[in-house]
């Protein structure tokens, strides 16, 4: 964390919170958080998508519902 920018500004490197400290451990943690967010999102999305289609097929998959949809202009 930076409390002021006084001193030799040309010597300043990373300026985000915890940047460049602990031998780069924070940056590795940030990277892992990004990867987990990405993969977790895909897993959650696939689950939600499967569940939604299963429910929609039960709800709207009858012959009557499909016929009604096809009778309308799409």
């Amino acid at each position, binding site marked *: 964390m930076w409390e002021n920018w006084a001193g030799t500004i040309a010597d300043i*490197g990373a300026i985000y919170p915890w940047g460049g400290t602990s031998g780069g451990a924070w*940056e*590795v943690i940030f990277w892992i958080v990004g990867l987990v967010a990405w993969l977790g999102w895909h897993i959650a*999305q696939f689950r939600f998508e499967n569940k939604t289609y299963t429910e929609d097929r039960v709800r709207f998959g009858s012959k009557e519902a499909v016929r009604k949809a096809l009778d309308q202009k*799409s």
Partner: protein
Amino acid sequence: MSSDIGALTVIFTEFYYWLTVVIMFLIHIGFCMYEVAASRQKNMMHTLMKNTMLIPLVSVTFFSFGWWIYFAFPKIPFGPLTDAPFAEPWSTLMGPHLGGGADEGAATWARLNGVFWAAFLLFSWTAASIVSGAVIERIRSGAFWIVAVLVGSVTWIIDAAWGWHSEGWMVQYLGYHDAYASGVIHAIAGGTALAVLIHLGPRIGKFRADGTPRNIVAHHPWLATIGIFLIYTGFWGFYVACNVPIYDIDQASDRTFFSSTTIYLTPTTLSAITVNFIMSLSGGLMAGYLISRGDAFWTYSLGLAGIIACSAGNDLYHPIQALVLAAIGAVIVYKLHYWVERRFKIDDAVGAVAVHGYAGVYGVIVAGFVLWGYPASYHADWATVTPWGQAIGAVIMFGVLGFLPTYIVCAILKSVGLLRIPREIELIGLDVAEYEGRYLSEDEVRAAEREEAQKTGLA
């Protein structure tokens, strides 16, 4: 950053790439508009979300590994990984950084890493977005987003490391030259789209029993054309982002000569690519109008194809060469689109495989003939441009990195039932949430309106 001119050069370059990012954002808006317009009304919102959500997914993966691939893979598989500490996702230079401290190359990369990353990311979105249009109205969003990450953060950036990096092995051994990404973005995206389409199959009703295709008309042709207009606009930023704005191109001698360069650090000018962009667009539009007999959808699309057909060599072509090559390319891809549709029953809803894939392949190969013997890079002893080098390059872009990996991934997704939406949903429409309102409550709402009108004496 301690001298005026040094700081100005770096900060100008930083601003230059930032500006390209903003302009290129219009490509994505254009793709969204175009795709939504091309879909039927019952699928609009699903189509929009499918394209929109590739933005965060490709962004987080491009941060996590895509950017590093570009700098680390230029010699793979013929040499070792290249050391690229500034592009590692855990590098301090991937975050806000003032350029001081012990980080290697920090003075320059602290200012340029983020805007370079973002410019390349916008190319990634474009690659994924090209695929998105082809597969509308029947692909599962989850499956598409897997493909989007594959092409946006893995395959295209590998091809960029090989054939679009000034030290890439394709440049070195094949003399591969593709200044504005005919192959690097468009051919690979086209190959990817084709691989998805083969597994996905056509939309219900696309082909008659005798195998002839029906035309599934865009629900909003006017919006589609505005979408392509926006893609044209964003394409300016794309071209400019492929250049380096200020670079000493005479470093081999004792002299100094600053110029714009291509991504290969070979000389060109902004003027050159501006004129050639317009002339190749013009060639595509002129030929597109004639070959499609004034069809707006195809005229616009073939304008885009004209640009793509010349992009490999638009750093060097004469404007009239660009015009003619674009026109020829537009006619070829139009004919090829319908031939493939009829022959192989491929339902490419927006012609993306043709406009991007075939035009990209054509653009790469034709540059091999027109620029035969030109230096492909700034290295004096590396291979020069040849037809065979470009042809092999086109096969790598469209086939090896575009088609093949996606074909395998889609085969897996299909085998576990995750590629295509259920048939009932396809028939009803993907915007199922609107089903009740649109189909079931409509009569009720209409009756209520009639009652209100009668009550108030309006009917």
